[in-house]
């Protein structure tokens, strides 16, 4: 433990985090791609800030090894490399914007520009006289075909108000859905309308947009409210922008092996990552690194990241979950665990080991290790989940109460089971719950042992796809179910005796319903009988 934090970023969010950390007098290394990174002057003096903060400008991260509490990050500046040893890492890189010219069939000219260009002109304009003197009609194209967001809409409306404040111009905003779902935007929408901005919304039809020789744009459409055919000749056309992660942020996600969301931002789209967490302990993401964020939201993220650091500093060792460990005598270095670990907690050196601080105790590696070389530090846990005997007293002759073993993820189905009990829901008399750390930790041998202990049916109840804390648990569970069911069918046993279902922690009703339904199916199948001749 070095007590140091690496902060990667150059923009407003990164500066806010730096300020928060430095007021705590904590050691900080800043890696910024910018030319300079101004350290906050207050409340610490600049001299003191320099003492605690090591600033590397024009610097990128080259690679990273290690885990929380012991990261070795290689920084690169003009081809020169330097290794930084840090406990934790915060990434607060800025976004990239892609202008939507192609969506509207337009080419950039002096009269057709992207939103950022306009904002820059408006900013400069306040100092250098009016660049917009000849312009009477301004058209904004936003979120037609490609979905926009409140961050872009706010910038557009601010720009409109500036354009309108100086000269009475005709301003049109053409859009599909007006994205006002942010603080103050509906009010600003009303204010811009009062200032004379006209909003034209498209639902199914699309405007005809033609860029004519002089660079101006002619737009023709039928107004949905009035049903009237309208033609606009825009002296200035502003196209919206898509906000995406910067190329460097994408590189960082790869370097640090972070989950990405659908849009490429470096945070998995998983509610367990709220607010600034990633699949890797000790690596936090804030602001535009994790999603499209307005400036106030970036500051909220920055504060959340700073708060998390304070928590880590106060209680560095996480003892909340059981950790997995590798028996190197049994390990064959096949690297299955390394490949599967969602939290990147497996470290490959001369020996393969698990960084305890990075391990979330999901048990996915245990279930897949072909040598059975991995166990939980708390041996009872391994043993407990290993022998799920479903003891049901059967009357002589036929089994009339099917015995069911339900492997329940502790984060979801196990809670749902308790809720079902509180709610007084009817449940099958012959069911037994085996609480597991993750649906993905249920191995083939766990399942077979359950059948071997007289279970008529086995269920694996996992979180929903996309809600699993380890992200891949439901998929592993599904694969195992398919694998065993196929073998079952080949020996004449019903594949339906082993099922995987998904549940959330607040689904007490559905938990009971799922079990009752399964019991019904098992009753129809009757007791396990292997067909002769198979």
């Amino acid at each position, binding site marked *: 433990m070095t007590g140091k934090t690496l902060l990667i970023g150059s923009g407003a969010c990164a500066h806010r985090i730096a300020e928060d950390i430095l007021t705590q007098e904590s050691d900080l290394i800043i890696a910024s791609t910018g030319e300079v990174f101004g350290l906050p002057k207050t409340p610490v003096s600049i001299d003191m800030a320099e003492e605690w903060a090591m600033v590397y400008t024009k610097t990128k991260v080259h690679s990273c090894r290690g885990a929380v509490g012991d990261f070795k990050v290689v920084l690169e500046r003009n081809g020169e490399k330097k290794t930084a040893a840090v406990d934790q890492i915060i990434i607060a890189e800025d976004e990239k914007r892609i202008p939507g010219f192609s969506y509207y069939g337009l080419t950039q000219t002096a009269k057709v520009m992207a939103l950022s260009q306009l904002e820059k002109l408006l900013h400069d304009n306040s100092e250098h006289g009016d660049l917009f003197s000849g312009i009477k009609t301004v058209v904004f194209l936003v979120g037609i075909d490609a979905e926009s967001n409140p961050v872009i809409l706010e910038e557009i409306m601010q720009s409109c108000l500036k354009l309108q404040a100086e000269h009475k111009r005709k301003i049109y905003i053409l859009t599909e859905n007006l994205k006002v779902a*942010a603080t103050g935007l509906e009010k600003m929408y009303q204010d811009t309308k009062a200032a004379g901005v006209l909003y034209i919304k498209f639902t199914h039809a699309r405007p005809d947009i033609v860029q004519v020789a002089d660079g101006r744009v002619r737009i023709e459409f039928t107004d949905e409210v009035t049903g009237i055919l309208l033609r606009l000749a825009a002296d200035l056309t502003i196209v919206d922008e898509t906000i995406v992660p910067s190329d460097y942020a994408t590189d960082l996600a790869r370097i640090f092996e972070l989950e990405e969301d659908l849009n490429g931002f470096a945070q998995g789209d998983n509610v367990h990552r*709220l607010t600034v967490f990633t699949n890797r302990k000790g690596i936090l993401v804030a602001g535009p690194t994790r999603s499209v964020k307005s400036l106030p939201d970036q500051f909220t993220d920055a504060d959340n990241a700073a708060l998390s650091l304070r928590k880590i500093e106060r209680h560095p060792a996480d003892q909340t979950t059981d950790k997995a460990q590798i028996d190197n005598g049994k390990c064959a270095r096949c690297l299955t665990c390394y490949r599967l670990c969602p939290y990147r907690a497996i470290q490959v050196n001369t020996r393969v080991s698990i960084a305890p601080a990075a391990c979330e105790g999901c048990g996915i590696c245990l279930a897949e290790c072909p040598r059975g070389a991995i166990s939980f530090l708390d041996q009872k846990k391994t043993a407990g989940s290993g022998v799920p005997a479903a003891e049901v007293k059967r009357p002589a002759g036929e089994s009339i109460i099917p015995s069911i073993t339900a492997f329940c993820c502790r984060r979801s189905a196990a809670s749902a089971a308790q809720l079902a009990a509180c709610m007084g829901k009817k449940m099958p008399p012959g069911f037994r719950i085996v609480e597991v750390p993750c649906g993905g930790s249920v191995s083939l041998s766990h399942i077979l042992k359950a059948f071997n202990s007289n279970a008529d049916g086995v269920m694996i109840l996992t979180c929903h*796809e996309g809600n699993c804390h380890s992200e891949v648990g439901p998929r592993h569970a599904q694969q195992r179910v398919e694998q065993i069911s196929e073998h079952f069918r080949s020996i004449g046993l019903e594949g339906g005796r082993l099922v995987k279902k998904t549940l959330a922690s607040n689904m007490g009703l559905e938990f009971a319903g799922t079990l009752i339904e399964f019991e019904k199916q098992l009753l129809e199948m009757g007791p396990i009988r292997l067909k002769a001749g198979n």
Partner: protein
Amino acid sequence: MTEKTVVVIGSGVAGLSAALELAQLDISVEIVEKSDFAGGHAIRFACKATDQCVKCGACIVEEKLDQAVRNPRIRILTGSRIESISKTERYAISLHQKPKYINAKTCSACGVCLQQCSQDGAIIQGVSRNHSPFFALNEKECLYLADQSCSRCQEICPEKAITLDARARQIACEADAIVLATGFAPFNPQNKPYGYGVFKNVVTNLELEDILRREGRVVRPSDGQPAQKMAFIQCVGSRDAKLNHLWCSKICCGSALRMAALIKARQPESEISFFYIDVQTFGRDFVPFYRRVQEEVRMIRTIPGDILETPEGQLRVTYIAGETHETIEEIFDCVVLSVGLHPCKENLEVVRQLNLKVGDSGFVAPFEIDGEASNSGVFSAGAVGGPMSIAESIASAGETSLKILKYLEI
């Protein structure tokens, strides 16, 4: 150093999140909750996943409550309201806690009291396994509290967990800082021409959450039969210049469309229409989700004029079709009003005692604007400051927690 204490008013997702953040930094937290069950509005929300999680965040509220009840530094005082707040060195807060009719330690959640209660609605049920006791007495309905004419629950409770003569308590707390996390009040749509409160099958989005949670599917409140033809009406009480409600409630598009997708998955024969002004972006997977929903849900870009009930008990919705500009009357089994998030009027007294400023909209002004309040150790978190999603409320609670640490110089 003596241990610091923070009082959090409200046990919704913002209050719970702030409490957890602070408790993890060794600060003691007292959560004051007015209702019998902790967790706020969102603890009642249904999971909207089909097979895929749709990131509504309902399960995270459950998780926060679970962590909070297990955290030794957090005490949740349900059924409590603030009587007075004064400040000398620290804040001195006087609370009134309603009687604990049901003993949490001995209640086994068997449900006999609910089954045997002779008065509808006098025993109410929790929604989380962390609601302990899982049942509560509704003082307004209980016959014993009215005229002592019935004490059946007390007599039959197998655990002897019910004491109908229980007394209210006065609780005195001291605090170094206060967090107002009282959340929002749902807009009351009674004055809208949609027959809410008159026609049984007109419900709010929050009531639909409850129905989904309780029944697992949508049934008409009038007869308990599955709803076949449903409509969602968005922006009821939000984005409404006539009412001077100049805000988007932010969460309703996501909540309504996620519920619509869930209903289509569970009741594929149902037909769902969605009346809207603009569809707001929600979630990172909005684009594919919205594309899928548009195939299953009929999107109608207009807000209906009114709703009347037919003699058969169905709902006749009148609206102007966007493309043809014709007036259309259409029959639905059930109409869901997506009601806006509004400032909580009940807190006004507390807000006044805490010297917090209230903005034009009626929501509490954020501390960036109201520097005075944060200098005095009073903070806010979550939807008390304006409409917020579950994810935003959690983020807001984190931001507030850092401000409290700075204020307490920890």
